[in-house]
């Protein structure tokens, strides 16, 4: 299982890009951290998700 933004998903084995394409994330407007390290956009296609990975996907929201 892979933990994405707090939810456990059964996506181990896919690349990150494959996972993102299966969702509605706006890839121009997000940043991704894998196991606490930032993952540059160009690596999405090469990064294979493994069991136990923790993925954080963030974007900007309003704030002061």
């Amino acid at each position, binding site marked *: 299982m892979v933990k994405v933004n707090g939810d456990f998903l059964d996506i181990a084995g896919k690349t990150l890009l494959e996972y993102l394409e299966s969702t509605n994330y706006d890839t121009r407007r997000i940043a991704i951290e894998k196991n606490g390290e930032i993952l540059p956009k160009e690596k999405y296609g090469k990064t294979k998700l493994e069991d136990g990975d923790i993925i954080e996907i963030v974007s900007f929201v309003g*704030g*002061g």
Partner: protein
Amino acid sequence: MTDDKLILGGHEFNSRFILGSGKYSLNLIEAAVRDAGAEIITLAVRRANTQKGENILDYIPKGITLLPNTSGARNADEAVRIARLARELGCGDFVKIEIMRDSKYLLPDNYETVKATEILAKEGFVVMPYMYPDLNIARDLVSAGAACVMPLAAPIGSNKGLATKEFIQILIDEIPLPVIVDAGIGKPSEACEAMEMGAAAIMANTALATAGNLPLMASAMKLAIEAGRKAYLAKPGRVLSRGASASDPLTGFLRE
């Protein structure tokens, strides 16, 4: 007045009003930016929505500098992570450090803020630390490479005005960086007073978000900040003192 610029990390700004974008509708942002005359707007970083569409960046006019904050961070490490994510989002090197270990008053943790500032300044960020107005910490922030200091005027979101006035004045007098008053400013008169004291800029969010008419309040704040800045540059005249003077002259002993 055109050469009176606010300089942050080598970048020049004409506006001295930094606008928050929290706690109000996205469709009001454009009017708020326009009527505030703002050139910098703050943003927060959060887990992304899986739904396409509603992205705040689509509502912010072109040419506005984005200032991501690190809200949600409880220590320096978390603030550093958030700042790096914000930079990965691809909107420049500015970051406002905001570290709260207290969920009741949301008071900034000065010690962790210094640590985060040091790390991020070394990584090339333009670091704008939100802080409790403490002179020693402000000096540490200068040494750590901050681009300015952002002391709070009152607890965040309180609209209570310049509760820390004396301490902000000390920072203005002693710190060789722009002092940007952040948090607590509720009314234009308070923003004006801070600018008259020599603050370099004002950051406001709740004052607008809670106003009856947001764009109108943005415009009022803008005028107040400009008025205060001009008054500061003009150097206020004397206040007639009413203090009594000694009945015996103090200098009666002088000879020669």
